[in-house]
């Protein structure tokens, strides 16, 4: 098994650490969790413990953050993680249709990953795209003013 904490990742840790005043050492928890997730796709409890060692704080506090914040994944996800907003403004503009279309096209339910590992389908709360609803996010990228045609084009472009 290869070490998830590559020298490049640890160098990135140092850059982030140097941005904060010394008394703000524990502020590194979220930046470092993001850093590991961006590099590896997900964060394990063992990763959290190593982040805690790097910062010099109890592992439980990093594990708490890992499990409390919704953006961190603790297991591998599909290559493309589709996050459909289903809050009020998107609901009023058709997010239920967006979700139904994606579930039918991908043949998976909410929270599931396609058999080929290409797509994971999730729902999220407000993405601040209310003026351009309905909206979803694929990995980091926002897609807005969605309809069936646009959804099909987006899915086709993600290989």
């Amino acid at each position, binding site marked *: 098994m290869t070490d998830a904490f590559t020298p490049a990742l640890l160098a990135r840790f140092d850059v982030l650490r140097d941005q904060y005043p010394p008394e*703000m050492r524990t502020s590194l928890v979220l930046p470092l969790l993001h850093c590991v997730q961006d590099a590896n796709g997900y964060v394990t409890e063992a990763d959290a413990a190593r982040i805690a060692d790097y*910062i010099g704080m109890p592992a439980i506090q990093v594990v708490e*953050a890992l499990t409390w914040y919704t*953006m961190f994944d603790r297991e591998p996800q599909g290559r493309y993680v589709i996050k459909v907003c289903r809050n*009020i403004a998107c609901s009023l*503009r058709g997010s239920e249709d967006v979700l139904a279309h994606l579930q039918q096209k991908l043949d998976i339910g909410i929270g599931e990953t396609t058999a080929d590992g290409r797509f994971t389908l999730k729902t999220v*709360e407000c993405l601040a795209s*209310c003026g351009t*609803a309905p909206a979803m996010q694929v990995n*980091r990228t926002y897609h807005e003013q969605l309809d069936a045609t646009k959804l099909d084009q987006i899915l086709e472009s993600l290989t």
Partner: protein
Amino acid sequence: MSGPVFMNFPITTTSHSLSEYRARGGYAALAQALREMTPAQVGAQAKASGLQGRGGAGFQTGLKWEFVSKEAPVVYLCCNIDEGEPGTFKDRWILEHSPHQLLEGMLFASYALRVRHAFAYIRGEFDLPLRRLEGALAEARAAGIVGENILGSGFSCDIVVHRGAGAYVCGEESSLINSLEGKKGFPRNKPPFPAVRGLYQRPTVVNNVETLATVPWIMANGAAPYAALGARKTPGTRLFGVSGHVASPGLFEKPTGYPLAQLIYQDAGGVLGGRKLKAVIPGGSSTPILKAAEIEGVTLDQESMGKAGSMVGSGAVIVIAEGTCMVRLLQVLSRFYAHESCGQCTPCREGTDWMNRILERIVAGKGSAADLATLTRLPTGIMGNTVCALGDAASMPVVSFIKKFGDEFAYYVAHGRSLHDGRLAP
């Protein structure tokens, strides 16, 4: 584009850059203030403008700054970019189109408060807003506008971008502070307020993006011209977002006191598909809903909105057309609040989940009159019994939806189906 403070330039692929911001006069007021004004004078000018927080609570910005001790060895500033109140998409516009305006505002606040390290706490989902903010910060650092000895003034201030990780409650200022300390985003009991004991127990000011990005205009044009804009008691302009069932959803900069009906019917093109207006949630998802007849004569300022029984909140106007099922719509909100309750206070953790389970049952056609009675009673056990306002935010829609559309709820539990076709989208 129309609006003095924000929407005063044409948006192009480069209009967010440092060079174009400077060409529009950006950072000139900062350079002058750093040369000619004391920190106290900057704070006094912000206070005299009457600027109030744009995050939703509407607290006087200058007063918040004044609460910070002048003797404190370390003071922190946090810009709250955890924009997440459903219906709200204004802070994102500022970051995407005018990020330097925010940085200049953060520097003004930092100078007034003698801040050496300021933090931009940005919600983790944001993509383009984050890239634009980081790009602007890199430009500003290279130009000597952020960092050591800013513009040769002797004043030094670093701005650190800190990403959140998906938690609505972190938009609450003490929750944001805990999150920035690497903890779960649990809100803190107040007092002490952050201005007294905040980030790492240091005096800390947390201000919204729109609030801080307004400061450069006030410093460039003066407090009195700003105080003269809009409604007398709550002056200025605001970025109002109109979403839901309107023909042209979008963001509009308007003076406070602007008529709500005009915003919906004129600026946002009226109700989608020529349908009749059913209701409006005027200030973000937690503000009490208004029926169509109740918005007549209402203007977008706290005085008028308060009389109508609601709040301007974050300036997020959500429009609902005739024929929409209010029971199902409320369940969308209840699901959200149940999901976002942080888990710290029992009334909120249990209450939001309970309200959501009842609404799920009603929407599934399995609700009873007793369920509806329980749902009506639950908010009284939550409101005022929690550390932060999330419990109240979750309760207010339940109270106002049932009060104003009680017949739809009664019909749903009596017949096991919606009075309407049940669809939320047109």
